[in-house]
């Protein structure tokens, strides 16, 4: 395992998200790589608020980047996640 460090590209963010979604919705994990980066993945994959919390927990643990509660509602697409996780 590599050291935890913030992702530097959208592709890396996608990989982090794939791992996070694998834990809550293994049935759709194969679709993460091909999902349009501007689509709402919560809606696309039918995820609920508990899933959202678990995914955010996993992303924080995997990237070391903080996700304040007030930005969570905006982080619904891979692009938005990337903007947040690679900005720091």
């Amino acid at each position, binding site marked *: 395992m590599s050291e935890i460090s913030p992702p530097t590209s959208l592709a890396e963010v996608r990989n982090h998200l794939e791992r996070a979604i694998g834990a809550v919705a293994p049935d759709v994990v194969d679709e993460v790589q091909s999902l349009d980066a501007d689509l709402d993945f919560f809606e696309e994959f039918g995820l609920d*608020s*508990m899933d959202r*919390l678990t995914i955010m927990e996993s992303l924080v643990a995997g990237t070391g980047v903080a996700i304040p509660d007030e930005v969570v509602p905006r982080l619904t697409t891979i692009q938005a996640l990337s903007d947040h996780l690679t900005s720091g």
Partner: protein
Amino acid sequence: MSVAPEQIEYVMPSLGADMDEGSVIEWHVAVGDRVARGDVVARVETDKSDIDIEIWRDGEVEEILVAPGRLVPVGTPLLRLAASGEAVAAAVQPDDAREAVEAGSDRAPDTDPDSIVTPSSRPPAVVRSGTGLWATPLARRTAAEQGVDLTAVVGSGPNGAIRRRDLPAADGAVSSDGAPPAEEASAEARPRTRADRMRRAIADRMSQANRDIPHYFLERQIDVSALMDYLGRVNSDVEVADRVVPAAAFVRATALAAARHGELNGHWRDGAFVPSGAVNVAVAISLRGGGLVTPQIQQADTVGLIATMARLKAMTLEARSGVLRSTSMGAGSADPDGNITDAADQASTITVTNLGERGADLVHGVISPPEVALVGFGRIAQRPWVVDGQVQPRHMVTATLAADHRATDGATGSRFLATLARLLETPEEL
């Protein structure tokens, strides 16, 4: 003051009102093991989920009465314990569980009689086949029906035991003449896959509800802007793992409102409403493969908002992982943290469904008998709302109540929704 150990038979608990049988798929203890209250002693497979069975007394395992893989009715003794420590009430199984055992002895054109353990045929089953393979009866029966060679199947159970879920998916249940197989045609046939059995369990329960319960439906729009602000403050300084979502507030508010309107909290039994002393809130949790389970938070009116969130999160993870704790399904009493405290089984007394999570604006639910009320929450959305004479964008949710008209009238339901609204509009009270 030492007394001789008390012998206790731990029976297959009723893990929800729709369960009448289950299989022990794995024992976590052996004869002679010391166990402490709260230890998981076995994993049980039911139609809807696997459930880890917690023991409610300290003691030593004297005898294991049912071998892995046996399908047994609720109430069948599973394990004999020489109990030590403080005695708790009601070691015997409830009457209805005993009846289930007795019914099991002469039931079943629908079930392989060999797979049912009755009190008179209790010795453990041998689940190893002549070929040396371990497989549950369900898996062996299904394999035989489908013509699957078990020697080619990799088992996921203990000792490599083959479970039904390990079998390849059945290919369309249609025979060569195009007609469904006889078993499929029979209304009593036991569905083959867990998904099918869950569907059947839900179908039976909901059909009964719609047949027997004269529902009435009420709805109320609730301004949850203050709640959203409140949760924003609660969540602002904590790690993601400790944040609270609105669903927890909905469950908490329902519990408090149910405690104040006891006419909606309890069961319809034998033609009359029986109020419950405890508020045990079941929460409908949908599963990704379809279907749902309804684990419960016992005495939810005594569980604060943060603890409610923790329980909800734990139950959701349990449900989605496919293995629930027995206390989440009402076997034994649990403290606010969900730890088992004694033997008395706790039926859920009211159910919450939060379909707004899935995008629905509101839900007119079906009551889960023998309960008499179901509370639904729709999607939280910003909508125009008049506040102090001005139209403002506010976070709104539509709460609904489906209630049993045999037990209450609309006026009671209306008061319940008013209480619910007031609680959610003043979140500091939660």
